[in-house]
C-alpha cells in the first residue's frame, strides 16, 4: 500500500523512497550494508521536467532538445565543457536568462508540473521557489542578519521573533550558526569566502525554496571551504532539490545522485552518478570524464 507523504518540497512521495521523510527500513539496511545510497525514481514524481527544451540567444542556440527529469530531494550535477550550455540550462530553471535581451525558448520546462515559461507565471514567486547560488559569493553589503532576512522582509514578514527564528534556522541549516551566532550584526563582507558562500546559501534558503540551483558554487573557494559546502549539499538534499553545475568532476561524483553530461548545447547522457562515472554509455561522456577531450 502506498502512503502519500508531503515533505518540504510539497511533492507527494511514497514511503519506499530513500529520499522521503519515512524511508523503508529495508532500504536503510541496504544502505548501511553496502554504504551506497539506493536511488529510486519510480516512486517520486520529478520536480523539474524538461521536454524538448530549446534556449536561443538571438539566432544562436544555447541549448537544444533537452528532455530530462530532475527528482526531488536529490542532487543533480550538470557537467560538460565550457560553452556546452550547462549554465544556460541551469539559469533557465528560474528564468534568470530573461535578464538577457533577445533570448527566447521553445519546448517546455516545468517546475512542479507548471510550465515556467507560461506567460501567467509570476517570476517573483518562481524565484522564491527556485533559489540560486552563484559562482562567486555575492553577499549584500549589509550585516549577516540583514542578508538573511532580506527575502523574508520582501515577502512581508515583519515580526522580529519570526525573523530571528528564520535567521537561526537558515544559519544552522547552512552550518554557519556556530561560527557567526555572536556577531550577526557584523558586515557579511567581513566573512571569509567560504563563509560568504554558505551565507549566500542560507540567504537562498530563507525564502523556503523547493529547488536550489548552484552555478559552480565552489570554484572560488579553497579545498577546506569546498569541503564544507559539499558537506552542506549532502545535508541539504534531504529537504531540497539541488541542481549543481560544476567543472570539477570529482565534485560531481562526490555530491550528486544523478549526473547530466552536456556537450555543444545537447544533453548527451543522463543517469545515476554511480553509473555515469564508472560505466558511461556514451563514448563522448567517457572521453570527457576521462579527460580525453574538452
Amino acid at each position, binding site marked *: 500500500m502506498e502512503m502519500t507523504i508531503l515533505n518540504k518540497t510539497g511533492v507527494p512521495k511514497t514511503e*519506499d523512497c530513500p529520499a522521503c521523510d519515512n524511508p*523503508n527500513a*529495508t532500504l536503510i539496511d*541496504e544502505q548501511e550494508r553496502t554504504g551506497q545510497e539506493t536511488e529510486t525514481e519510480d516512486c517520486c514524481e520529478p520536480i523539474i521536467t524538461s521536454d524538448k527544451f530549446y534556449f536561443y540567444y538571438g539566432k544562436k542556440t544555447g541549448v537544444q532538445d533537452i528532455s530530462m527529469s530532475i527528482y526531488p530531494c536529490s542532487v543533480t550535477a550538470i557537467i560538460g565543457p565550457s560553452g556546452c550550455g550547462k549554465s544556460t540550462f541551469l539559469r533557465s530553471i528560474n528564468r534568470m536568462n530573461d535578464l538577457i535581451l533577445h533570448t527566447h525558448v521553445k519546448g517546455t520546462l516545468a517546475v512542479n508540473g507548471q510550465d515556467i515559461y507560461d506567460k501567467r507565471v509570476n517570476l517573483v514567486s518562481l524565484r522564491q521557489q527556485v533559489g540560486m547560488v552563484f559562482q562567486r559569493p555575492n553577499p549584500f553589503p549589509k550585516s549577516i542578519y540583514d542578508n538573511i532576512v532580506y527575502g523574508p522582509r520582501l515577502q512581508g514578514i515583519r515580526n522580529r521573533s519570526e525573523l530571528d527564528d528564520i535567521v537561526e534556522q537558515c544559519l544552522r541549516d547552512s552550518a554557519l550558526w556556530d561560527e557567526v551566532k555572536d556577531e550577526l550584526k557584523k558586515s557579511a563582507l567581513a566573512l571569509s569566502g567560504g563563509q560568504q558562500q554558505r551565507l549566500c546559501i542560507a540567504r537562498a534558503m530563507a525564502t523556503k525554496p523547493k529547488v536550489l540551483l548552484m552555478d559552480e558554487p565552489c570554484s572560488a573557494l579553497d579545498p577546506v571551504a569546498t569541503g564544507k559546502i559539499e558537506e552542506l549539499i549532502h545535508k541539504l538534499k534531504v529537504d531540497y532539490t539541488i541542481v549543481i553545475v560544476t567543472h570539477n*568532476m*570529482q565534485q560531481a*561524483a562526490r555530491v550528486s545522485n544523478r549526473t547530466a553530461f552536456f556537450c555543444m548545447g545537447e544533453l548527451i547522457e543522463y543517469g545515476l552518478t554511480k553509473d555515469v*562515472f*564508472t*560505466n*558511461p554509455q556514451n563514448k563522448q*561522456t*567517457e572521453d570527457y*570524464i*576521462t*579527460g*580525453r577531450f574538452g
Partner: protein
Amino acid sequence: MAELQERLEKLILRLDLMGMRVEQALADATYAIINGNIALGQDVDRRDSAIDREEVEIEQECIRLLALYQPAAIDLRTICTIIKVNSDLERIADLAAGIGRRVKRATENQIDFESYPGFGHLVSSTADILGWTVRTLKVADANTARKIIKADDDIDRCYRKFVSGILSHENRAGQGVEAILTLINLAKALERIGDHCTNIAEDIIFLKTGDIVRHPDAMKDHSHDKTALQ
C-alpha cells in the same frame, strides 16, 4: 590526463609481461614435475620472488594513479582490473612455485606420471587455459573471457575425476600414501590455477562491460529478496 593514459599503457604492458612470466613458470614447473627435473623445479621457485616484487610494484603504481588522478570510467575500470588481475597472476605464480618445490618429493617417491593419464590431461588443460587467459588479457576480449569461464568447468571435472580415480585402490599403481597425497596436492594446485584464470576472465568482462559477473546466483537471489521485501 594524457599522462595518466601513458602510465596506464605502461602498466598494461607490465601486466602482460607478468602474465607471460607466469605462463612460463607453470610450463617449467609442470615439465619439471613430469620429467623429474629437480633443478628446473628449484629454478621456478627462485624466479617466484621476482614475480612477487613485480606484483607489489604494479599495485603501488595503481595506488599512486588512484590517488593522483582520481580516474573515472574506463580508466577507473582499467586500474581496478589491473589490481585484481595482478593479484591472481601472483597467486598462479605461487602455485607454480609450489609445484616446482614438489619435484624433489615426487622424484623421491618415484611417482610414475605416465600411469596417470588424467594428470597429464589436467596439466595440458591448465596450461591451455592460462595461455588463453594471458592472450585474452592482452586484447581484453569479453567474449573469449566468457569461454574461459566455461573452460574452467572442464578443468574442475578433470580434477574431480582424477582425484576420485586415484583414491580408488586399484588405480594407485602401487604408490604409497605420501605419493598419493603429493599427486592430489599437485592436481589441486592445477585446479586452483584454473579458478584464478576464471577470476581474471571475470575481470576482463568487467573491464569491457562494467558488469560484475561473479556469483550471479547470489546476486540474483539478493535482488529477488529486495524485490520481495519492497
